[in-house]
């Protein structure tokens, strides 16, 4: 990528007039359609199976989470140490040089030194297993919290490694770090045993592959101009007719049925759609304990109680996908409310959910990926699309991190996650996670070109620069059910556009 990418956020609004006039314009469109031919190019797509877990009995849950923290510290310690050496080897304070201390507990009082460890935030309001126990004994559990930051400021920050924990204090630390990120801290130990921090250092962005690097062919091979990538998230299908309007408009826009030739030309440049989580509004037909007790005492049903499971949302999602799939390949990520496992990394949505769209996907027995149809992938997800490396999540990691800090923008949080090289820093602590023992895939090994998080409140985008010339486009994909916005990324220039679908009442 040469130079700085210019950012264009030009929202285009599709003006849908009142229904009476819509039919008239529709017939006009079809006549013109026959004259001009719109076609879509194929998308160069190579999913990476970084986050797929072994199936069936090969998944083990008896491992300790301490293994995950150990793997994270060991794999990132080298990089952090290198950065800290570069920054602080010449550092002098009051004539004293800073020295590196191997173990966190070996810091000496009054000595200027730096250590590398994992951050741990001690917060009283974090979810606790004791809440579950209180639910057993009392009527209701305490409500889930919006933020873990305690109002009195009694939260403590600690640096941990295999020797122990060190309490750290310092003005530069407030709301900048969360549990699970690997940090080098420079400072001295005080009389009461806490470590006063002057400066900190993190691993920063890793190496970024060139565009088309993973392709075996020569990078200068002749390729067609890449199309656009459409990102949407938070469809939140409930099965009721309320969401029909927005969903139908989405289908019509993507398949080119709506609007006129200019917009249809623009829509025909889209070569792939990514649905980034929360396609279903709530996907647990299994009732939680309180509802189940209420239901049990209510009425006695003999046989199968059909009212406990509503298949309409899944059917609607399936029909939506099957309408778009003939003309556009789709990649679907599971989200917080989707019927996939709760723990990160969420495994792909099962093809059994999509009886109609299954025809456009490779059966799992045959292959783990479908390059040209419906690809059901993990959350988080990594792939090479049109040569660019893309990393995306359904948004749970960002939401969880925002609960640890005050007054921080979601894009800042996303940038920091990349710089710490942790895709889910809070993962075993407050975010459910699979206990990895051999290798932690939630560590960033190669810097992506595009990093998106779904289910944001509003659309945001930013380009961040790395120390070795890396450039990453950060995208916050808004919730479609509330905003009606679709994000389009031009895969040749990495420009971002926003398409907003809605109904505009004509001024009367």
């Amino acid at each position, binding site marked *: 990528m040469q130079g700085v990418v210019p950012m264009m956020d030009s929202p285009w609004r599709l003006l849908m007039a009142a229904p009476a006039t819509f039919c008239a314009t529709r017939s006009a469109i079809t006549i013109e359609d026959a004259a001009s031919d719109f076609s879509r190019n194929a998308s160069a797509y190579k999913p990476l199976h970084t986050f797929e877990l072994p199936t069936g009995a090969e998944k083990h849950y008896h491992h300790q989470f301490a293994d995950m923290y150990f793997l994270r510290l060991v*794999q990132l310690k080298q990089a952090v140490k290198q950065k800290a050496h570069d920054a602080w080897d010449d550092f002098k304070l009051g004539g004293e040089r800073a020295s590196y201390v191997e173990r966190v507990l070996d810091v000496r009082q009054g000595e200027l030194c730096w250590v590398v460890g994992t951050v741990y935030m001690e917060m009283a309001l974090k979810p606790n297993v004791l809440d579950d126990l209180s639910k057993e004994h009392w009527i209701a559990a305490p409500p889930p919290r919006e933020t873990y930051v305690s109002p009195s400021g009694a939260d403590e920050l600690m640096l941990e490694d295999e020797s122990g924990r060190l309490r750290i204090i310092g003005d530069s630390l407030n709301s900048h770090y969360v549990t699970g990120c690997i940090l080098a801290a420079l400072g001295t130990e005080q009389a009461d045993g806490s470590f006063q921090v002057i400066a900190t250092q993190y691993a920063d962005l890793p190496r970024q592959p060139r565009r088309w690097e993973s392709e075996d062919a020569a990078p200068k091979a002749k390729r067609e101009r890449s199309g656009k990538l459409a990102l949407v998230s938070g469809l939140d299908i409930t099965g009721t007719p309320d969401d029909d309007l927005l969903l139908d408009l989405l289908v019509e826009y993507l398949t080119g049925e709506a609007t006129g030739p200019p917009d249809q030309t623009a829509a025909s440049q889209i070569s792939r759609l990514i649905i980034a989580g929360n396609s279903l509004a709530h996907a647990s037909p299994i009732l939680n304990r309180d509802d189940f007790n209420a239901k049990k005492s209510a009425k006695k049903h003999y046989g199968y109680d059909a009212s406990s499971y509503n298949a309409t949302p899944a059917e609607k999602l399936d029909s939506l996908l099957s309408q778009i799939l003939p003309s556009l390949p789709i990649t679907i990520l599971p989200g917080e409310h989707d019927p996939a496992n709760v723990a990160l990394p969420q495994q792909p949505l099962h093809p059994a959910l999509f009886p109609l769209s299954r025809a456009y996907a490779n059966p799992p027995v045959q292959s783990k990926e479908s390059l040209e149809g419906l690809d059901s992938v993990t959350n988080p997800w990594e792939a090479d699309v049109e040569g660019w490396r893309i990393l995306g999540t359904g948004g749970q990691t960002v939401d969880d991190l925002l609960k640890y800090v005050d007054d921080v923008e979601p894009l800042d949080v996303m940038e920091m996650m990349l710089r710490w090289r942790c895709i889910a820093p809070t993962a075993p602590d407050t975010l459910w996670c699979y206990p990895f023992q051999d290798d932690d895939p939630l560590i960033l090994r190669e810097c992506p070109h595009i990093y998106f998080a779904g289910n944001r409140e509003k659309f945001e985008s930013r380009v961040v620069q790395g120390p070795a010339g890396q450039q990453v486009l950060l995208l916050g994909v808004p919730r479609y059910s509330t905003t009606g916005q679709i994000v389009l990324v031009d895969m040749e220039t990495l420009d971002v556009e926003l398409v907003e679908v809605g109904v505009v009442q004509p001024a009367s």
Partner: protein
Amino acid sequence: MPPKRRSTGATAKSTQSTLAFHGASNKVTKPGARATNAKKNILTESAKNEEKLEVTTVKVEEEDAPTTAEAAIIEQTEQVQEQAQSTPEEDQARQIKPKQLQAYWTKLSSGSAPRYHQKDFGLEEKILRKFDMTGQFGPCVGIARLKRWKRAHRLGLEPPIEVLAVLLQEQDSKDKISVQRSIMDDILNSHAEIEV
């Protein structure tokens, strides 16, 4: 109390059979149980059982089906063994002689007080316990020792080759599982056996 009734004359006999707790057909006790001399036998039998328990406690535990934690360690060792038929470090480890192990151990334990609590352990056991307690290779609980060594080697932490030598030696010899499970794992995941 009501006055006693005297039955005079022939009373009509009913055809219904009466309940009986005697006789061969209604025997309640099992055959072979000695109802007589009961006290004596109870005492001697309990004494015998206690002796039996003391003698065979160790064996009984091992014959039980492995618990989840143990089963996981067994599976891990089998996986690790399957994968690497002979990697370079394993070849190197197999060539280590007992003298080298002794030298390694003396170097490791030099400069510290003599370990009286480890008097009864063999050299291999001491080396393995030291490896367990070395925090820089990660937690020792919930992972087989061989797998932990391989993981540390893969991450570039340079675990001592002598430990691998000891593990492979013990593997080839007898009881594979007790060697792979660290002592901390035993202590933390121990469960109480209820002897009936």
